[in-house]
């Protein structure tokens, strides 16, 4: 149990470092939008998501309705439902309902990505270790950004903007190199994403990611259905 927890923490270090830099920016933005340091930190601790929080602060600052808040969060964060569903297929037998209720709080893009890249099943302890250290980075970064503002030179915070994307590439490139099917899915998703960004600009970013992911993964599943042996190998 304990070693799984520590392994999870260890695997969460790059996530925590990435979060520290990204949430620093969120902290600055939240205070600029009129929130206090405490409110900004509570948002980060209770939501643990980047795009949803930024949009949520926008709704608060604009004095929007609660319905608008609900819709914005639904659209931007609905991708977590797909991730949760995907991850639910990978859980160890020790993942009982209370553990699921607790650990579901920590399904972020990055935690999901690292968990799905693991061979075999996921234990609660492993996820808790990863969630704990990632959340610490996310909340600490928000607190520092909100309270200290611009302590770091711009050149450093700017360069930190690429950390999480670099990690994403490190997750998708090795399997793309080894498997034609994964390469196909990542290339289709990337092409669609470029299309939405520069041509179909009326679709919001949150929706665009959902459409790209469903289309690319759906095509991949049609053309390259996985065999049972492949799944047992933990791919």
């Amino acid at each position, binding site marked *: 149990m304990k070693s799984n927890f520590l392994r999870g923490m260890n695997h969460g270090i790059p996530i925590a470092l990435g979060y520290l830099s990204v949430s620093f920016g969120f902290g600055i933005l939240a205070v600029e939008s009129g929130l206090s340091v405490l409110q900004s930190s509570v948002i980060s601790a209770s939501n643990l998501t980047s795009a949803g929080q930024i949009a949520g602060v926008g709704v608060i600052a604009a004095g929007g309705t609660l319905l608008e808040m609900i819709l914005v*969060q639904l659209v931007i964060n609905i991708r977590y439902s797909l991730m949760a569903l995907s991850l*639910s297929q990978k859980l160890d037998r020790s993942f009982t309902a209370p553990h*699921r209720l607790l650990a579901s709080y920590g399904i972020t893009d990055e935690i999901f990505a690292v968990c799905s890249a693991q061979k075999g099943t996921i234990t609660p302890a492993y996820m808790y270790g990863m969630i704990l250290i990632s959340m610490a980075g996310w909340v600490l970064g928000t607190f520092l950004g909100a309270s200290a503002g611009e302590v770091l030179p711009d050149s450093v915070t700017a360069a930190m903007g690429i950390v999480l994307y670099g990690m994403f590439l490190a997750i998708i490139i090795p399997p793309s190199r080894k498997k034609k099917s994964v390469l196909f899915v990542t290339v289709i998703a990337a092409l669609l994403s470029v299309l939405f960004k520069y041509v179909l600009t009326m679709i919001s970013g949150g929706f665009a990611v959902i459409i790209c992911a469903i289309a690319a993964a759906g095509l991949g599943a049609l053309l390259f259905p996985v065999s049972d042996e492949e799944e047992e190998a933990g791919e």
Partner: protein
Amino acid sequence: MTVAVYIFVMAAVTYIIRMVPFTFFRKKIKSRFVRSFLKYIPYAVLSAMTIPAIFTSTGNVVTSVVGTLVAVVLAFFDLPLIVVALAASASAFITGLFI
């Protein structure tokens, strides 16, 4: 309306979205198509989120592209996540010093 109410609603919606499928979906999925789909979803989501956003992630296209190239090469050789992530950032920072 107080900010606390907004924060509560925001957090509740985000939690429910994650919790419902994670907690109530206990069966192993039989359909080969659905299992394949769910296997490919992580790669599709991450790819769509990374491209093209990574090329403007540092606020400067040149430093972003250099960081991206470094990340692609290191990831191609299977280096650990943290090494790839920090090398991308460091190379973007160093490039920024020269432009």
